[in-house]
């Protein structure tokens, strides 16, 4: 373990960039803003690379720790802000800073004409800071800082064009839904603190990962509850069932944001967290099984929705939800390296797809409906080619990055002994076929056939946008070789025994088979635009298609109905309990009682002096009689 305070520079540089652009951005030229915004992330990436070489050079045994400062110290908590740069966080840091840098560069072109240019880069830099805190933080509370920080940036960026109420609402929906998950995360922290307090009342705790690991024995009896509470947090952040519904709406933000936050980095935080706390999940087969199950079901569920979407970004959004499900399946069956591996490759090809989509939208002057596209292959050649490569990668063409990582997950699920793992494998296999289908459906509709009327005037994007696309496409191709080839990722991330080739052959072949089938169906139905068969099918199965397009009405129930119920409850409580019961009935009753007594007393006070005198005289007489009676 090496102490290295320089580690703080990695997250703090983007923070400095954010502060700089927030304070001075409005008065500076766009070039300066862009230079600072991209520059700080670029330097952070370079620093991460240097640190990574340090870690990897030591073959994964050297861990950098940045000594921090005491943060929350009270009772038996002594929480420190400290950074940890080990194998897992080094991979994550590289992905985050690397992809962020590319997307920052892309954004310079994409947002070139936006009035909120400086504000955009402020938010984006702030996001990188929060994400790095999430990844590098050495304890659950510090991870939570990043965890909520990225949620905030996501909120700000989804609602970036705040003048559109729908977009602002989408941001709010994302933040609140995330908060539901965060409540679970917090309760898990509290639970751990409680268990620790019972186990060792005299000690104080920092809740760092090392400490959790060292006290795993104390946590073991409670592992299921804690792991599931933490997973609630992951469900919220990583858009799994039943809290997935904010992610499709989050596409209201600028497209580079969708690529960075809602595909490559933030939404994968849940996967990172489960992998980071793998030792805890390993203690509870039930919790692991739940993780895997939720992942598999979400993967399939989202894929069935993606097949009918008509908005290019929505297709990719549901694809992201689906791929995140794959990752959770991976970490659920305790193949943590496979999950993280898929997280990385997914960051490459999904960022490429989103940026490609952004380029297409840019070319179509803001149009996102794929039914109005078509034949764009010749219009935006560089975008189309990179999009094609990324589609191949996600669909699982052998030897591309997506194939390698997805195969590892399927393989792990196939061989897992967890309860229900076989079923999850089957579900995931079907999802793999659906993935190939909906991705090629998207690709064929957008890029093949004759250019539609709207697509006539499409033009290729500037180099600042296409260069990141090409880099990401290249990474989508070779990303799979990165770790198995250059570095044994399984060993790097501490995996025990990679299965032998003959054992992994059956799941691999099955995956290839369904992938090919998916591609073939898509080719038949959508090459050159929707074929008559496709349209006939859509009419014949209209109810199903509508239900799929409407997300099987889950969003209606959870994303729209529940908030409304909460609002109405609040309103009813206000009018009925606060106003009617307490103010009108109880307080009004009390004051009416006082008023009534006053009224009675007022009857005597009628202002007639002689009535007073009569009362007075009678009173005197009564008193006299009374006293005289007493005397005698």
């Amino acid at each position, binding site marked *: 373990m090496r102490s290295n305070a320089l580690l703080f520079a990695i997250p703090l540089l983007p923070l400095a960039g954010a502060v700089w652009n927030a304070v001075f951005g409005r008065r500076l030229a766009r070039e300066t803003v862009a230079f600072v915004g991209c520059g700080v992330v670029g330097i952070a990436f370079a620093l991460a690379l240097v640190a990574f070489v340090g870690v990897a050079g030591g073959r994964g045994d050297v861990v950098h720790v940045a000594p921090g400062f005491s943060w929350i110290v*009270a009772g038996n908590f002594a929480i420190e802000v400290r950074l940890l740069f080990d194998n897992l966080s080094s991979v994550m840091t590289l992905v985050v800073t690397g992809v962020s840098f590319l997307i920052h560069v892309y954004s310079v072109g994409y947002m070139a004409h936006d009035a909120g240019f400086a504000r955009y880069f402020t938010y984006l830099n702030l996001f990188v800071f929060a994400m790095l805190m999430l990844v590098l933080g050495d304890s659950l509370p510090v991870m939570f800082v990043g965890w909520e920080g990225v949620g905030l940036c996501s909120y700000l960026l989804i609602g970036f064009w*705040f*003048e559109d*109420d729908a977009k*602002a*609402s989408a941001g709010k929906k994302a933040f609140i839904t995330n908060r539901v998950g965060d409540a679970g995360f917090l309760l898990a922290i509290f639970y751990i603190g409680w268990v620790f307090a019972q186990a060792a009342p005299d000690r104080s705790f920092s809740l760092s990962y090392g400490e959790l690991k060292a006290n795993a024995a104390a946590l073991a009896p409670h592992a299921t509850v804690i792991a599931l509470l933490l997973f609630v947090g992951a469900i919220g952040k990583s858009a799994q069932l039943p809290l997935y519904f904010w992610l499709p709406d989050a596409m209201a933000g600028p497209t580079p944001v969708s690529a960075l936050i809602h595909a490559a980095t933030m939404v994968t935080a849940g996967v990172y967290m489960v992998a980071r706390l793998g030792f805890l999940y390993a203690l509870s087969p039930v919790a692991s099984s739940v993780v895997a199950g939720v992942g598999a079901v979400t993967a399939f569920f989202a894929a069935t929705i993606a097949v009918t979407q008509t908005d290019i970004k929505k297709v990719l959004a549901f694809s992201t939800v689906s791929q995140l499900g794959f990752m959770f399946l991976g970490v659920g069956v305790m193949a943590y390296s496979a999950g993280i591996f898929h997280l990385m490759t997914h960051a490459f090809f999904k960022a490429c797809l989103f940026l490609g989509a952004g380029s297409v939208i840019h070319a179509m002057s803001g149009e996102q409906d794929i039914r109005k596209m078509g034949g764009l292959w010749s219009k935006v050649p560089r975008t189309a080619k990179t999009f094609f490569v990324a589609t191949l990668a996600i669909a699982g063409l052998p030897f591309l990055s997506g194939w390698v990582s997805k195969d590892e997950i399927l393989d792990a699920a196939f061989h897992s002994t967890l309860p229900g793992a076989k079923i999850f494998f089957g579900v995931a296999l079907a999802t793999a076929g659906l993935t190939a289908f909906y991705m090629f459906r998207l690709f064929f509709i957008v890029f093949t056939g004759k250019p539609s009327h709207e697509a006539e005037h499409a033009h290729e994007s500037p180099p600042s946008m296409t260069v990141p696309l090409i880099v990401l496409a290249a990474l989508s191709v070779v990303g799979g070789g990165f770790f198995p080839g250059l570095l044994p990722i399984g060993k790097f991330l501490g995996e025990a025994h990679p299965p032998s080739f003959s054992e992994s052959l059956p799941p691999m072949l099955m995956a290839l088979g369904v992938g090919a089938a998916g591609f073939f169906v898509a080719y038949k139905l959508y090459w050159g635009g929707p074929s008559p068969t496709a349209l006939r099918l859509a009419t014949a199965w209209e109810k199903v298609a509508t239900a799929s397009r409407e997300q099987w009405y889950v969003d209606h129930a959870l994303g729209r109905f529940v908030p409304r119920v909460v609002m109405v409850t609040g309103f009813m409580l*206000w009018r009925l309990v606060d106003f009617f019961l307490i103010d009108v009935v109880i307080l009004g009753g009390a004051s009416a009682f006082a008023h009534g007594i006053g009224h009675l007393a007022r009857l005597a006070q009628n202002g007639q002096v002689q009535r007073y005198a009569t009362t007075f005289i009678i009173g005197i007489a009564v008193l006299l009689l009374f006293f005289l009676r007493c005397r005698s």
Partner: protein
Amino acid sequence: MNPFTPAYLSAPNSPLLSVLVFLPLIGAALLMLFPRNETRTIRGFALVVSLIVLAVSLVLIVRYAPAAGSVFAFKQRIDWLPVVGAVYHLGVDGVALSLVVLTTLLTPIVILAAFSQITDRVREYMISMLVLEAGMLGALCALDLVVFFIFWELMLVPMYFLIGVWGGDRRHYAAVKFVLFTVAGSVLMLLAMLYLYFETGARSFDLAVLLGKDAIAPGKQWLPFLAFALAFAIKVPMVPVHTWLPDAHTEAPTGGSVILAGVLLKMGVYGFYRFAMPLMPDAARAAAPALAALAVVGVVYGALLAMAQRDLKKLVAYSSVSHLGFVMLGLVALEPKAVTGAALQMINHGLSTGALFLIVGLLYERTHTRKLSDYGGLFKVTPAIAVVFLITVLSSAALPGMNGFVGEFLILSGSFASTGIPAIQAWTGVATIGVVLGAAYLLIAYQRTMFGPVNEKVASLRDLAPREIVYMAPLLVLFFAIGVFPRPVLSRLEPSVKVFTALVEKRSRIVAAATPGSTVRLGAPSVVPPRPTLQVQPIPTPNLAAPNLLQRVPRPTFAPAQPPSPITRPPSPKAEERR
């Protein structure tokens, strides 16, 4: 006899607190001499007075160094009304001191804010503010029930005028409601004070004397505790005696709302902390489950109602109900983390809700409307206000890295680990829902005002003026400072909090058997004698935890001869195993 009064009396007097408390009163008296229409001079003078008070309170922070075995400093004790046993007795511990500084910080801010907001009867407004400040400071420093009661009532009068004279359209209703609620509580409190006076046999209102005695019989604690609890619960306010708050908050002028939310509500919590719970520990512990339940109900209920509001100020008012629910939950959990969090959250709430009310005031000053539907798109029109509002909203929604998070995190984590309340984990879970709802209503308010298309009613608002930046800036800086480096604040709060929890637990006659492990964490060296770990060693001053509270010098002479007192709990076998 009370064993520690002589030691206490030997403590050196410090006049600083009296200076602090009476400076605003002197300032107010001098203000009366000013000609009514010299508004500029009057404003300037009031500001200077409040700044001097702030400076004095900063001196207090710097010089706060309680002697070993005590958490109090700057004590002043003068025989005042020996006939009734009332003593002019002031002193602050860490919690009171931080609330004192909160008060002295918020007062100049609201005076500065009033420069443009109050144009009618300026002199009277400033006098009210200064008298109010004196009342708050006095109540916070008081260590005698009569002195506390006097200052408690002193706060009421200027607040009544602030609401009733400078308030909104329904100001008379709101002012009368406020006074009636508070006075109803005060009357009960007065009776409870008299009950204690006679029942303890102390014939004194001095907290030092009362705490020096053993707590009265548990069965007899209920009456005074309920009376105190009701008086303080009204002030907090806890559901269901909270309905004065939305009206008072909404109708009060900005400065009134800020002070009301920032400090006055804390007086209720502080009353529990300083008087009700230590004086009636058994009743307090027996009532803790009910109070915790009410607090959690308040958290959720306040948040739900805040969500339903159409009036920005009312929304903030109901958010106070929710936030103070957290604070009360932390206090009654009687766990060091939770109580520390509650103490910190009192400050946080004062800062962030104060800032929210200031922002509402800024907007109201420009638009003369509080209705959410009259706003929209201000992020474009007034970006500086929007940014300030955003930061304040995030602080109030307890975003990590901001002050609110530290408080809520400690409260909830502490109450989760609390041992005195059945099913506290479930209650904490419900309270955590309040965190979600908190984000919801704040973001709803933010979206309605700042996002969306620009409402033409507000299309030409002017952005922040330099003076407005000046008074918002300290609050914003403190949000981040406390959020990132809460250490200096926590380290001042925690020793006092530990004394408080020890006081409630050790004075309680219900032996701590019901709460295994509860005394374990109380063994802070500066607070109580080492906990009775093993019976073989002689236990120094076994049941003197309470007296030690106000004692400057530990009294070792007392200890060795004393056998272990029956009320000290022998260590439970479970605790032994764990070690």
